[in-house]
């Protein structure tokens, strides 16, 4: 566990040493702020964050591959992997450390967005339970996103390729819900179950249901598991 935290701390620190963390924070809070401003200035604005959460989860998808692309790719490209992996650390600890580092940045971003419900509570009466549900949803979706991004980063030594692979997987999982409508009843039902958008719907409306929780957690677990296996296999080449 200590190794995981050591690696996570190192990753989190390096986000803040480079402009990365600040660019991500500015981008995320900027877009969310814009959407928030538009929604509260609408004629019949309500103290409701459902639309806000949809924005938050989509922008989380956009920033994910940027955050995760370097995590393992860069180590492989520069050769620093050799020094890292010859330390007495398990492959799974390295992957978990990197993952927690990325999640650390994401949680900091989410904390930054708390300004919106706080602002809302000044002028209206937001439903705090719904807001809590929304945040749990964004966090769970973010967990799955970061795991998928990290998986992409484990596959290739090229950061650009890692980012592209990350976007392809995430957008596919996002859009599969729309494809579902086109595909008709039978396929559509199955497709809807694995769609990020569909699974997020309940949270955005303030409902905490077990099925989407299980969906996001298993997606996270599966992606991390594959990432660990990829790193293990890389050694055997």
């Amino acid at each position, binding site marked *: 566990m200590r190794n995981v935290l050591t*690696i996570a701390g190192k990753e989190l620190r390096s986000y803040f040493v480079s402009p990365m963390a600040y660019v991500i924070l500015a981008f995320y809070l900027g877009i969310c702020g814009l959407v928030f401003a538009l929604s509260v200035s609408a004629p019949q604005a309500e103290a409701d964050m459902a639309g806000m959460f949809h924005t938050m989860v989509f922008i989380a998808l956009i920033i994910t591959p940027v955050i995760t692309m370097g995590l393992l790719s860069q180590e492989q490209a520069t*050769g*620093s992997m*050799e020094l890292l992996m010859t330390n007495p650390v398990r492959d799974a600890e390295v992957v978990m450390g990197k993952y927690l580092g990325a999640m650390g940045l994401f949680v900091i971003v989410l904390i930054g967005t708390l300004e919106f419900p706080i602002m809302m509570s000044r002028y209206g009466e937001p439903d705090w339970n719904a807001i809590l549900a929304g945040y749990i949803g964004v966090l769970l979706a973010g967990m799955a996103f970061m795991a998928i991004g990290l998986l992409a980063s484990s596959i290739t030594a090229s950061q650009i390729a890692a980012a592209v692979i990350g976007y392809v997987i995430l957008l596919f999982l996002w859009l599969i819900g729309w494809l579902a409508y086109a595909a008709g009843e039978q396929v559509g039902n199955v497709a809807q179950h694995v769609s990020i958008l569909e699974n997020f719907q309940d949270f955005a409306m303030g409902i905490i249901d077990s099925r989407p929780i299980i969906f996001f957690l298993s997606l996270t677990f599966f992606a991390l598991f594959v990432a660990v296996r990829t790193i293990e296999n890389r050694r055997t080449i």
Partner: protein
Amino acid sequence: MISCEGLTKFYGNHQAIADVDLHVGEGEIVGFLGPNAAGKTTTMRILTSYIPPSAGRAEVAGHDVVTESLDSRRSIGYLPETSTLYRDMRVTQYLRFCAGLRGMGRAETNERLDYVLDICGLQERPDDIIGTLSLGFRQRVGLAQALLHDPPVLILDEPTVGLDPNQIIEVRDLIKSLAGDYTVMLSTHILPEAQMTCERVIIINHGRIIAEDTPQNLTAQIRQAETISITLSDARDDNVERRLLDLSDVVAVRPAGPGTYHVDTAVGSDVRAQVAQFVVERGWGLLELRPVEMTLEDVFRQLTTEEEGVE
């Protein structure tokens, strides 16, 4: 402390090392010598569990490098061939990170940190960003992290590459000072380096171990003759070669360029003074006289041709 049996590694179809057996005893300093692509780095990467062998087994400090790799890795300090460190970290920050991964406590870390910074000549730049350091200083940081956790076994892949002459001497002295307490395996291309620092050298070529002995024995064994090179400005006399051959102990004289001759003498005899005096007396205009160092290439040529002769 280090032992391998039948170690073999294939990269795809390419066999990088074949059936490598080697043993390094506790407290021994062993040089691992070989030309480019001989398989030195490959062997060291297997020993440090970075890559698994295709066949054979290896143990470090009594732990199998594949099945008990966490234990074997814990007892190794490793300096990879290209010390690729995290460029955005500061020197001590990076070393503390390494200490964390090796389970070192705070007090122990502070104590060892002072020691390795001092011994690796980094005490003046503990807070420099690694990416801004020169190549030689990055190599020092690499060495510092290898020594950090006071490991019983050190595996150093070309430790003096990129260092300035002073630092090379310091690092060689440092390695020599480790004798007895640490088991050291270091790879190099440079024969004199191995001769200076190691008690024993293992020579690898084309992935196979071709010789293993003390540096002295090895050079004696390979070297049938000592050679000196002389350069003359004024060798009108056509019989330079024959006249030199008349000197006692001179075995052969070969022309080696305009005015330059290589004089082979029996092993163990030093004819430099004799030759110099002779040349001066003749008025041949002595421009240069130096012993010809046996290069690693010579060693390989000899070892490999000898082997072929046997087959």
